């Protein structure tokens, strides 16, 4: 096998893209070709430099905001048509019906508004932490160390648990500000993606988890034992629900 022919095989071999038969064929060639052996080392060096040097550029927050505004327009324009009498009548009936529903379910609706606003703030805080690279003020996977750090700063008790055995490794914690109050943030890592867990005290009764997504981030929020907990990340919703179950146990 001449090296010119081996060249694309070399790339495929290096990138793990050859099937077993061709990989074996290339390895036979490699055994007596110094040039290809040297090139493999060069490829490895180059790949290492590309991956270790921080040249990946993440999207600016303004881009995410623009897309988000596009997806959630504040005011929608509708083309108005000439309404007929019965349409007015239907609209009036609908209004009455809506008023009735609002009266019946307003507590839940208010809670949805609350969650939407909260989700915005939490996702913003999550984005800030990703952009500044400032995820943790206390970086440790030791539950007691992290708990001790929080206990000295918080007015409420915060359980700190590492779920590394279930794939959610504790990375540490920090304090953040959400809706004008200081909140505790536990930072976990799952499949190399960071997960922020925001926790603050509440007087409200316990709730089951609510989920949602904003700007490509998933969140799960629930109240338990006089604490409100909101988990946010760009991992899948299932992952966050699993973390919710682990934390609720």
């Amino acid at each position, binding site marked *: 096998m001449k090296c010119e022919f081996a060249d694309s095989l*070399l790339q495929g071999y290096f990138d793990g893209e050859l099937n077993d038969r061709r990989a074996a064929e290339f390895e036979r060639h490699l055994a007596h070709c110094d040039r290809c052996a040297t090139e493999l080392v060069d490829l490895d*060096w180059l790949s290492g430099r590309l991956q270790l040097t921080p040249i990946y550029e993440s999207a600016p927050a303004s881009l995410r905001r623009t*897309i988000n505004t596009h*997806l959630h327009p504040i005011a929608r324009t509708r083309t108005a048509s000439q309404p007929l009498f019965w349409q007015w009548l239907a609209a009036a009936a609908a209004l009455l019906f809506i008023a009735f529903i609002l009266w019946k379910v307003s507590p839940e609706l208010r809670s949805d508004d609350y969650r939407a606003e909260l989700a915005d703030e939490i996702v913003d805080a999550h984005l800030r932490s990703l952009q500044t690279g400032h995820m943790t003020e206390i970086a440790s996977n030791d539950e007691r160390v992290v708990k001790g750090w929080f206990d000295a700063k918080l007015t409420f008790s915060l359980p700190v648990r590492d779920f590394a055995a279930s794939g959610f490794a504790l990375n540490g914690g920090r304090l953040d500000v959400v809706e004008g109050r200081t909140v505790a943030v536990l930072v976990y890592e799952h499949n190399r993606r960071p997960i922020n867990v925001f926790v603050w005290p509440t007087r409200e009764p316990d709730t089951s988890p609510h989920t949602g997504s904003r700007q*490509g981030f998933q969140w799960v929020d629930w109240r338990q034992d006089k604490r409100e907990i909101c988990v946010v990340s760009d991992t899948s919703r299932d992952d966050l629900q699993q973390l919710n179950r682990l934390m609720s146990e």
Partner: protein
Amino acid sequence: MSELELEDRERFEQLVLPYVDAAFNLARWLLRGRADAEDVAQEALLRACRFFRGFHGGDARAWLLQIVRNTCYTWLEKNRSMELSTEFNEEIHLQDCATPETLAIASDDRARLTHALETLPPRFREVLVLRELEGCSYKEIAAITSLPIGTVMSSLSRARRELHSALANPAQKGAVREV
């Protein structure tokens, strides 16, 4: 601008938005600048939004990056068509980048690598970015670039060789520039 129905919007947020970084990063390297990249990535994302009903599952990242790439090339053709026709970018690059400042900071690792990557023609740059930074498989790169897999392999091979020699012999290139 057409709006997505609620259900599609949620699906778009779940499937496509996780790749906003990937979209921006590819645009940044194809266009060699953050400001242009933001404009073009935005255009591509809005286009993805518009065409989302035509996306019937599959690899959302490859689907989005294909749109980003096409939008980038359209932009380059309109604004810097020279770059697409030139095999090697050294001259173009010298005009806008080789100020004394850039040469001075070229000793910095990151700046050197950035400079070396940016001197490669866009077609080499894109396969490197997709393979090394984005971790795409050959099949995914072929889907994104609409190139046959054989061409993906040979482009990668050329691109790596060019980049390697640019990094291994920076002094020689610097010397030529000084003259």
